[in-house]
């Protein structure tokens, strides 16, 4: 059974989740009607790009994984490995090292597709997906990041997180999911996230 978090935290998670759903519904409608979008199931090049999400979004993703029995020992191990590799790594090195998103399964599909972060929903390609591979990024890459949409979402999350006295808006997805588990299982509180991620950074970087 889903453990209830403090009311203010539940409200913030709900607020961000509603916003994510709203933005992604409108966005997906626009993408689905664009015949030039070349993204297809099984192409996972963008799953090797750096992905950072807020702790509030991570809680929503984690809860979806638990509810759908996908938060398995195997997945948790992948998340842990990803967190170890991602912490303190620069954007460029993350790209070049081809660190996969831990939610990417062996069939090259997202384990949390229905609940995937907004940033994953907003990237799409209008060209040959071959050039979305991190080693091939360049003038032939026709990925559209929808920066304005992501920025608006980021700003809104920042405001919500400030209410909890948190300064960091996004964290690498591996660390974010592990912290989300700790919060949802009552092992730590949302207000400790900055302190915990800073400690992790000091220990690892």
């Amino acid at each position: 059974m889903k453990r209830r978090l403090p009311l203010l935290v539940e409200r913030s998670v709900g607020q961000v989740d509603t916003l994510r759903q709203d933005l992604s519904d409108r966005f997906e409608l626009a993408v689905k009607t664009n015949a030039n979008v070349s993204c297809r199931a099984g192409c996972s090049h963008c799953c090797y790009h750096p992905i950072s999400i807020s702790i509030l979004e991570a809680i929503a993703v984690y809860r979806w994984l638990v509810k759908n029995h996908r938060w398995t020992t195997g997945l948790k191990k992948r998340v842990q490995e990803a967190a170890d590799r991602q912490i303190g790594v620069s954007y460029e090195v993350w790209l070049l090292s081809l660190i996969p998103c831990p939610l990417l399964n062996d069939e090259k599909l997202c384990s949390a597709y229905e609940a995937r972060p907004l940033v994953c929903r907003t990237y799409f390609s209008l060209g040959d997906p071959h050039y979305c591979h991190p080693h091939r990024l360049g003038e032939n890459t026709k990925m559209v990041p929808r920066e304005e949409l992501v920025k608006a979402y980021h700003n809104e999350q920042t405001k919500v997180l400030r209410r909890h006295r948190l300064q960091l808006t996004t964290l690498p997805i591996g660390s974010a999911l592990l912290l989300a588990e700790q919060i949802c299982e009552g092992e730590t509180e949302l207000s400790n996230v900055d302190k915990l991620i800073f400690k992790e950074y000091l220990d690892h970087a």
Partner: protein
Amino acid sequence: MPSLTCAVCRQPRDETTMLIIEPTEQEKATMKRMGEDAPLAKYAYCRPCVRLLSTPMTAVALMKGVAILQARGRGTDLETAEKTAGQFVNKVISKTPSRAS
């Protein structure tokens, strides 16, 4: 706190947390033969990059990615850069002692 720049990510880091490699004269000579004009007296690597280089999967990808980036920076087309980088990485792997041996 004294800081050094990581040879891989070029980020300044606390020197005490870094892995410092001082190549021998023989190694410097090999580096020159491989195209490094002026090998440094020491190379510093930060912990995040060392972790990636210690994991076979990410180490191979990182080496290949850097080689592609460098080749493209010199004006090589992508296809040739990928091919050359693949050959370079295979050569490095073939000369790397296996952990089992």
